[in-house]
């Protein structure tokens, strides 16, 4: 743990808090930029879209009270921040007795589990492919085959998802097309349930992996080519080290460093895109909950979900940032 200085950790922690605060503030401001008072706006739009609201009068009153809309805007803001940071997002509008936090905590494990696994697989495979593409010692046949893995780069994950549902779940009955597990199974640590969960996660995970793998590979290829020109590589070759050792301990070890920074930067984009992937697969995570909330004009749930996605991504970036100095000892010398 020598690489982790106090200054570095504090600075990263500052970024984490800043991001979450900025996100929460944006979520606070947007409804207030809309004409009228936010509660009226919500109920009004729900009425337009024909959503049935139970006890709407009481709800308007309850909401006004919670927002404290008669108070000055600054009081409202601090009250909102207090509620947000104490993880109290209030009640859902469309399924009233349920709280936003309870709905989110049910969906969150699905999203985090699948997204983390898919991102890690994509990161490892993509970097390996990129490194092999740039490496002189790669067999010709392998080198010619590698670019095939790049064909899905730049296609949105959810579109690949739609295609795969059609090909593998509807045309051929190989994999399930929707949901997180088969109905009627007992939830728990039994084989039937776990295998069902795994089966349901194959297509959504694959659509994220196939789409993101190419950009990792392309960037890694560039980085490996740059690394290959460095003096220490020539020295390693001159010393007569084995190609295996040069590839891993000298090439990949150095070329992968900027990729870890890039992982932090792209996490937000991947998480955002995953929202739509989940919708397409009706996967029971945050993205699908968000889709349902949009359909029901359930504004409290929409805001709650987006806050938690911002929070989760910021936390993940924080963790990635903390591992970075452990891998690259040079980073601690950069102060300020």
């Amino acid at each position, binding site marked *: 743990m020598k690489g982790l200085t106090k200054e570095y950790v504090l600075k990263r922690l500052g970024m984490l808090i800043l991001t979450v605060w900025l996100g929460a503030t944006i979520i606070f401001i947007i409804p207030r930029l809309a004409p009228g008072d936010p509660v009226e706006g919500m109920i009004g739009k729900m009425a337009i879209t024909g959503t049935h609201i139970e006890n709407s009068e009481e709800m308007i009153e309850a909401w006004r009270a919670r927002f404290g809309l008669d108070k000055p805007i600054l009081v409202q803001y601090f009250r909102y921040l207090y509620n947000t940071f104490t993880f109290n997002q209030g009640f859902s509008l469309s399924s009233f007795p349920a709280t936003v936090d309870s709905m989110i905590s049910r969906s969150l494990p699905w999203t985090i589990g699948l997204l983390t696994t898919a991102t890690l697989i994509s990161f490892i495979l993509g970097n390996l492919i990129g490194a092999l593409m740039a490496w002189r010692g790669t067999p010709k046949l392998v080198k010619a085959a590698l670019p095939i893995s790049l064909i899905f780069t730049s296609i949105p994950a959810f579109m690949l998802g739609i295609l795969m549902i059609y090909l593998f779940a509807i045309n051929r009955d190989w994999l399930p097309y929707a949901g997180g597990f088969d109905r009627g199974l007992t939830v728990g640590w039994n084989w039937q349930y776990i295998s069902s969960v795994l089966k349901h996660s194959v297509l959504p995970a694959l659509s994220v992996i196939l789409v993101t793998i190419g950009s990792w590979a392309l960037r890694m290829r560039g980085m490996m080519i740059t690394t290959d020109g460095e003096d220490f590589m020539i020295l390693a070759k001159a010393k007569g080290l084995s190609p295996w050792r040069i590839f891993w301990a000298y090439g990949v070890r150095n070329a992968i460093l900027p990729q870890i920074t890039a992982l932090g930067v792209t996490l937000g984009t991947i998480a955002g895109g995953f929202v739509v992937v989940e919708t397409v697969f009706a996967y029971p995570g945050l993205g699908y909950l968000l889709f349902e909330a949009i359909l029901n004009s359930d504004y409290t749930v*929409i805001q709650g979900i987006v806050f938690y996605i911002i929070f989760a991504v910021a936390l993940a970036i924080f963790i990635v940032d903390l591992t970075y100095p452990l891998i690259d000892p040079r980073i601690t010398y950069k102060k300020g």
Partner: protein
Amino acid sequence: MEEKVLMDTGNSNIKTVGFWQSPWFNPKLIIGSILLLSVFLISNIGPIFWDKDMALVGSSPTNVVPLWVTEKPSGLLKDADPAHPLGTESNGRDMLAVLLVGTPRTLRIGLIGAGIGMLVGIILGFTAGLMGGWVDYVISTLCDTMVSMPGLAVLVVIAAYIPQMEVNNLAMIMAIFAWPLPARSIRAQILSMRERDFIKLALISGSSKIDIMFREIMPNLLPYLAASFVVTVSGVILASTGVETLGLGPTRIPTLGTTINGALRATAMFRGMWWWWGPPIVVLVIIFVGLFLINVGLDEIANPRLRGLKS
């Protein structure tokens, strides 16, 4: 063959490069440009020959299969009709008209959104890179926080509050998250360029900062700016189709993303109506692949090392 002098090394050793060896003759760049140009031209010339109003709800019979489909996926669908070569969907929109109307609208969201984003990105990137100090600190911290935010999710909240979504609104909203990445990369480029000799020389020779910015830095930055713009367009179209697929796009006149949303909501996949969700995806894939190839091509032009190991 046309011969061009690329580099004068100062003595008799002048390096000449043939036309076909010019870095701009990059196959990826050319194929990408052709793909995009053909989508652009077809979707803009097409409406001359095809009635655009058939993209509206109820303008055509519902559930017609495309011309070449002889075996109907289900009995509830209508037989092929020469008046609707690509078929129609369940709301009575003609699919060919939907594509011809939706594609330019989707492209427009990309261009406007990315245009605004790039403009803000260039201004902030240049300010941060040239001024340095606390200005740089504030701008780059802001960029870092914005980049690490899941843009699409926040855009969904914003879009959810807009009662009547139109193409221009959507483009404007998309610009909110389009500027941080270009700003960051432009700032980084300027920082590295500031250290180069020709900028130092210009400074010593007494050129003003604005002069250096426009006459020394800008021209050298062009390939990066172009690549950055292409990435931003791609990002904006990706985000906007995502928001539209979630059901927050313009509804009356379709875009490619709202068409996919309509298909998902009407469970077109399970009713065998692949011509509803398929064509918009194909057009979008052509657009994305085109932009991607252009970006990779520009990258190879800007960084000659990426063109491959020829040693």
